[in-house]
């Protein structure tokens, strides 16, 4: 078996223009959903209303214990069949699914960050008669988010790495495109290897950098 360099050069252009664009889109928008919805979930979990915090806890627990793939199927195949019959495109369903799945992880990240803020900070805010909203936006969250930064970076890398699962619901990301290229010639070695290397080349340095950041924030 020898490597077809000419074909590799040919398809690499397609792989990195169309496929890469979609993967980047999924990662960026998935991360935005995860970071915002995760913060919301983390705050709901802390709610003083019992049923709200319980519901948030169960939601996080359930989503974290079931496979992302099945959740994607649910969004893509089930939502259109139940009222109000929302039909999402594969890409939208994928971004939402990925975002909500990882929101349940980021909720834990934020929670740890908020728990890490010394209780004195809350007490000081109360003593200064700061309103609830001000306490959170100017005192607690800025400190909590700084602590959460490395872990959020890990989530970002995880979203990037897991984005190929969207290819199973027909999104043509890097892996989806590689699969399609492979099926044209029934030769998967070159496209899948190039696509796999692409993930390694980006994900490994990223996680090494996050580890450095983690150490720097620690001391």
């Amino acid at each position, binding site marked *: 078996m020898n490597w077809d360099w000419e074909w590799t050069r040919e398809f690499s252009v397609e792989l990195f223009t169309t496929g890469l664009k979609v993967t980047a889109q999924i990662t960026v928008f998935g991360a935005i959903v995860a970071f915002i919805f995760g913060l919301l979930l983390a705050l709901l979990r802390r709610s003083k209303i019992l049923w709200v915090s319980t519901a948030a806890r169960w939601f996080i627990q359930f989503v974290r214990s079931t496979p992302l793939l099945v959740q994607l199927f649910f969004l893509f195949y089930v939502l259109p*069949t139940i009222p109000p019959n929302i039909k999402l495109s594969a890409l939208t369903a994928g971004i939402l699914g990925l975002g909500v799945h990882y929101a349940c992880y980021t909720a834990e990240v934020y929670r740890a960050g908020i728990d890490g803020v010394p209780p004195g900070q809350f007490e000081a805010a109360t003593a200064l008669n700061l309103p609830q909203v001000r306490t959170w936006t100017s005192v607690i969250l800025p400190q909590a988010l700084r602590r959460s930064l490395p872990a959020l970076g890990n989530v970002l890398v995880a979203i990037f790495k897991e984005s190929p699962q969207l290819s199973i619901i027909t999104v043509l990301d890097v892996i989806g495109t590689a699969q399609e290229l492979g099926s044209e010639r029934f030769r998967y070695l070159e496209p899948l290897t190039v696509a796999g290397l692409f993930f390694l080349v980006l994900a490994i340095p990223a996680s090494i950098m996050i580890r450095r950041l983690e150490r720097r924030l620690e001391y």
Partner: protein
Amino acid sequence: MATINPCSGDLPGTFGDAMPFICDGAVVTAQVTLGGAALAIVLAAVAGLASTSHAWLVRAVARVYMEFFRGASVLVQLFWIFYAMPAITGYRLSPIFAGVLTLGLNLGAYGSEVVRGAIQAVPVPQREAGIALNFSTYQRMRRIILPQAFVAMVPPGTSLLIELLKATSLVSAISVADMTYQANVTVSSIGNQFTIFGIVMVIYFLMAQVITMVMRVVERRAATMVGRETPKRRPPQMAWTDPAPTSAGGGGKS
């Protein structure tokens, strides 16, 4: 009242039509999870121990394995092993074997980080006491370090096992007839997506709860063996970060 076997077709409506297939799939999911876990645990132990070795070459090999298999997701590795590797080796692995192999290799890499972190988190004086008592390197590992490290491995290990369970759904993409695959097949023949995917998600959830409960027993026993009490509740840990070193490993080394 007669008890009804939930896996037979006796249940009314969609349940009766779907449950026999979903149960078949659940058995395969359980098998793939157990197989993947067995391989992952062995690899995690070997690579984790190797990464604490004094020989730099051994450490480097372990490091390369860990970084390589954590650098891409299970799905990418699965596709590569199943579709691309036959072009190099000349023969195609059976789908279920490819699935177990990939899951074991991938989760083993994450697991070895847990093992390494837990070993490094054991306080240095414990090792020094072993030296002072003239224990051999093996005895020190076996009698002093590992029993303590094992307690610290269980909670992050539990998260990893749940990640493994979830990742088994990906083997459906290479046509292993697991629960996700059976759900898709059943949906395409009888429809009713909501009920079927709903049932499947609940079963995955219950399986994850079983893993959690079993591991809690393991943790309690491991803790009692080294004469410690286990804390009642602990916050869930993230699988892809290195939970042990952040609290103890970092502090222990400085």
